[in-house]
């Protein structure tokens, strides 16, 4: 099922959390060879995981991570504005209706269905929160994945070659993309909406002493 979880609530899903950060290490460090930090537990975290992002996670029936992506509003700190302004023609992309989507990750062996489910999650977020665009840091593989999903990513700027190649790109979920995405994911819209409501109604409450 699709889960929408804020960083501060991941503690309620320890298995899902740990397998997600391990799968991220496997994908970004081992398979893609990115310059990311992997801790002693074999998990990949960065500074944006520390500022309470919203994760969309595909949870497998055994409770482990099947795939995920991470969202932050561009009015706060984002990877694109903090590190990649040279790829956006110097434009600091900033709006409550444009969110950054990063760390798109698939667990080893995840199929097209998981990719479609994550795309669907991004689409629901876009619709429910009136977003206009997503901005993200892409590698060529991600561009292919988004294109396969019919999302027509638009790359603003690129740098580097081969393994080092990254770009900043835009994408959005149009209404007409929902139907084929639902079909690829094997999920009906009603189920998708129910997952969304389950996540945002009665949100998990952090340890109250921590913030008082």
């Amino acid at each position, binding site marked *: 099922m699709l889960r929408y979880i804020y960083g501060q609530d991941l503690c309620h899903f320890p298995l899902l959390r740990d397998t997600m950060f391990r799968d991220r290490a496997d994908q970004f460090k081992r398979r893609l060879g990115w310059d990311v930090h992997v801790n002693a537990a074999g998990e990949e975290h960065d500074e944006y995981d520390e500022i309470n992002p919203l994760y969309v996670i595909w949870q497998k029936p055994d409770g482990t991570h099947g795939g995920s992506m991470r969202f932050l509003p561009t009015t706060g700190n984002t990877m694109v504005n903090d590190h990649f302004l040279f790829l956006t023609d110097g434009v600091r992309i900033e709006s409550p209706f444009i969110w950054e989507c990063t760390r798109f990750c698939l667990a080893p062996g995840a199929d097209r269905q998981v990719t479609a489910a994550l795309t669907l999650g991004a689409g629901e977020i876009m619709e429910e929160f009136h977003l206009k*665009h997503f901005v993200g840091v892409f590698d060529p593989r991600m561009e292919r994945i988004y294109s396969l999903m019919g999302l027509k990513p638009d790359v603003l700027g690129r740098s580097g070659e081969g393994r080092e190649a990254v770009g900043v790109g835009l994408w959005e979920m149009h209404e007409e993309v929902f139907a084929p995405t639902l079909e690829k994911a094997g999920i009906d819209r009603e189920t998708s909406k129910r997952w969304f409501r389950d996540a945002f109604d009665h949100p998990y409450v952090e340890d109250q002493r921590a913030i008082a």
Partner: protein
Amino acid sequence: MATELQDFLEVIQQVDTFERFQEATVGLRDLLNITHVVYHWVNSVGERFGAGTYSSEWVDRYLEKDYLRMDPVLFGCFQRFTPVNWKQLDWSSKAAKAFFRDALDHGVGNQGYTIPLRGPNGQFALLTLSHNATDDQWERFITRYERDLMIVAHEFNKKALSFDAPGDVQSGPTLSPRETAAITLIAKGFSRGQAAAEMRISEHTLRVYIESARHKLGAMNTTHAVARALSLGLIII
């Protein structure tokens, strides 16, 4: 109402003192014809500030009872960035129920909607609206205004950020050269397609530049953004 909210954004943009910030919350309450509006923010060093229309009895009561430690609205919104209808929050505990009754007795209203906002470097704020209404009426109100209120909330937040950094000269919004070019072409009457072709970028990229400029200019929509850019002297046509 679109025009009124657009005018209201300009009221916020002209706020230069804490008292006028307070008056702006009253102005928004009256404009929307609801019971209360409260804006409350935590700056990057963790200090809290608030402005709003709650009675001083309720504010004192809130502090005296230390509701900060259990307010479900605060816990449901803290450090998040997705708005909540209070109905969505967890009011099941005994303490939460008692708090809700106390708030009702102090005229807060039986419905609420809170927009948590995130600024740079850990800055965080909440814009809260409350009212007496049925669930249906309140949901209709939210559906009608949620997008506009997100814009209004960010305009309040820009003021909060400027109060936090009094050393910075408030010279108003600035746009990057690409945003300026995009808004200039739209102001000259180019269609999006023509403007994108002129700038040798895709229409999608152009729309992102325009949206980013709209936010920086504190405008309700593209037309308003063009008008703001012209009146601020940021573009010349």
